[in-house]
């Protein structure tokens, strides 16, 4: 057990960070800092402990009951010690039918834990997640909320085994991995401090899919003139539309749409 004197929540730097969070919000509205501060206490302790609740209550001048009511409402605040690696498997409908259900069952069996449970070694916490907003990459798995796209049971097993071996496999998009506690500090709203991390994670094929079609067929949006004047109430009505492109009439569907050049690139039939 951590002694009271060395308790991570007593670190003056943490208190400093909490005050910085409070200062982000308008004067007198410090309670807005509660969600980020709960992330901050997770960065110190890995989950929201009674100490963490008291820490927030004291700094925000609200009761511990008020803080607990909030902490227990949100899925990302953990009430039990959480591993360095929070492995979330999306099992919402699209990921589920594309293999997410199988991935989750495989991990449950391999790790010997269920939803929202941590391995006996304490390094991995498993959960099934609701839609993670990456359906075009289904099925997805996240580790500390960083995405591993288009997964299957085998690939996910390799990922988890690598984590257990102390490796940090590069996510498909987004930054390289950091631990759950380190990540929680970013959730509290502090900027990324690791060098070169911001550029990690180029967009994958699904993100660019529409652009690629446009590129292949030479499609661009016509009629875009950045110097089109913004109409003014003070101008005479006659002057207003002078240099603007002709508006679509109210009675017909607008425009002819984008220009499609001859689809010479259609070699993929």
């Amino acid at each position, binding site marked *: 057990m951590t002694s009271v004197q060395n308790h991570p929540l007593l670190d003056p730097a943490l208190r400093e960070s909490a005050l910085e969070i409070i200062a*982000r919000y308008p004067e007198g*509205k410090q*309670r*807005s*800092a509660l*969600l980020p501060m*709960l992330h901050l206490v997770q960065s110190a302790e890995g989950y929201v402990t009674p100490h963490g609740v008291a820490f927030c209550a004291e700094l925000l001048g609200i009761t511990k009951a008020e803080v607990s009511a*909030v902490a227990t409402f*949100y899925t990302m*605040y953990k009430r039990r010690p959480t591993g360095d690696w929070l492995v979330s498997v999306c099992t919402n*409908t*699209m990921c589920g039918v*594309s293999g997410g259900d199988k991935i989750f069952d495989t991990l449950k069996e391999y790790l010997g834990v269920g939803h929202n449970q941590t391995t006996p070694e304490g390094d991995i916490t498993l959960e099934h*997640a*609701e839609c*993670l907003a*990456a*359906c*075009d*990459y*289904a099925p997805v798995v*996240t580790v500390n*909320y*960083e995405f591993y796209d288009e997964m299957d049971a085998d690939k996910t097993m390799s990922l988890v085994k690598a984590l257990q071996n102390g490796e940090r496999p590069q*996510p498909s*998009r987004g*930054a390289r991995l950091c631990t759950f506690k380190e990540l929680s500090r*970013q959730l*509290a709203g502090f900027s990324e401090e690791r060098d070169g991390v*911001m550029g990690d*994670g180029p*967009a994958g*094929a699904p*993100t*660019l*899919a529409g*652009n690629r079609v446009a590129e292949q*067929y030479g499609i*661009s*949006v016509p*009629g*875009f*003139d*950045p110097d089109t*004047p*913004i109409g*003014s*109430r003070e101008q005479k009505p006659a002057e207003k539309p002078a240099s603007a*492109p*002709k508006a*679509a009439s109210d*009675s017909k*569907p*607008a*425009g002819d*749409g*984008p220009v499609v050049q001859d*689809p010479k690139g*259609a070699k993929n*039939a």
Partner: protein
Amino acid sequence: MTTPSKEALAKIAPVLTKRWLSPDAWKLSVYERLDGYTGLKKALKAHPDDLIQLIKDSGLRGRGGAGFPTGMKWGFIPQNDGKPHYLVVNADEGEPGTCQDLPLMMADPHSLIEGVIIASYAIRANFAAIYIRGEAIHAARRLRQAVDDARARGYLGRNILGSGFDLDVVVHSGAGAYICGEETALLDSLEGYRGQPRLRPPFPATHGLYNSPTVVNNVETIATVPYIVLGGSAWFRTMGTEKSPGTKIFSVSGRVVQPGQYECGLGVTLRQLIELCGGMKPGHNLRFWTPGGSSTPLLTDEHLDAPLDFEGMMGVGTMLGTAAVQIFSDQDCPVYATYRWIEFYHHESCGKCTPCREGNYWMKGILRRILSGQGTHADLDTLLDACDNLLGRSFCALGDGATSPVTSSIKYFKQDYLDYIEGRKAPMFSPGELVGAH
């Protein structure tokens, strides 16, 4: 792989997504080189009221699901009322199937920041918050960097570009609650409370964040603003349809050759979207789909040619929602899909109102019982009865949305339910797991 038809190609219109092809567009210097912040410079020279009028004229409608006219929303903010005004961006993307806001904030975060500054200037807000879903840390990281960089360059802070306009922006990470995508729940969450919806009226336009006039807009809506400022409302109206102008990023997922983000003029059809995606995956035939996430009633292969715009979707008994097009095939079971969605609504119901809290609990149990081969014919009536008690009787749209997959799947795929109930289809779960379900 099919080749898209000329009609399908005519719908593709990269406006918001254009910069995504430049891998470093998230950097301020690259964004500026790609015409970034020129819309802001232009907007700051205009009168705020003229900007509100411009957005009204453009016909831009909210991209978060409801399709409310954006300019009208801005116009509802009372001016010269002596109260602070706020802009809140709803970046709590979580509607099942929806995945366009995160790639936008990842690839082109400054376009959102630029839109935030212009919108704040128009409604006379000096504080704006971007409430981003907690799990979306990869995008939040880029947004925070963008805010820091924009501030360092004088696009944020005091006296922006010498205009006398001040603005602070905070990027606020949520903590895992779908309900916070509901605008009043989001405001409560942003104020440091449980994310539960508020009674309306009063509306956020007069009593929003900190009880002050507030505009809450979706990411895509705000990111569209700089383009309208630059290109004008008439240009914007050359895309999309008369009542649903402009482009929308369609998030296509599921059984197609290339799922992904396809920015098209509103009014594109599913047939055209599937063509753009290279056709259905080999061995899969379209069976059912959502036009805009799980809260919009399912459609089938009868609806391939219905225009995907606000009116067109209402015309076939559903909604455009978030334009999250999830495509399922004859290898997917609509009963199971519905069960998984209801499990989701059950998990995400905030518990404030009884119809949603209890209705989803019971619907989940009944659906699981049916999938376990233990369902009865009366279960279908009970499901529809539960939906009757939910739709229009829940406190917010989460409860309404939960009825969509249930009623629409029973409408189009009753036989699938009967196959489980009458024992023609093998159970998906073992009855042993059903203790207490009856």
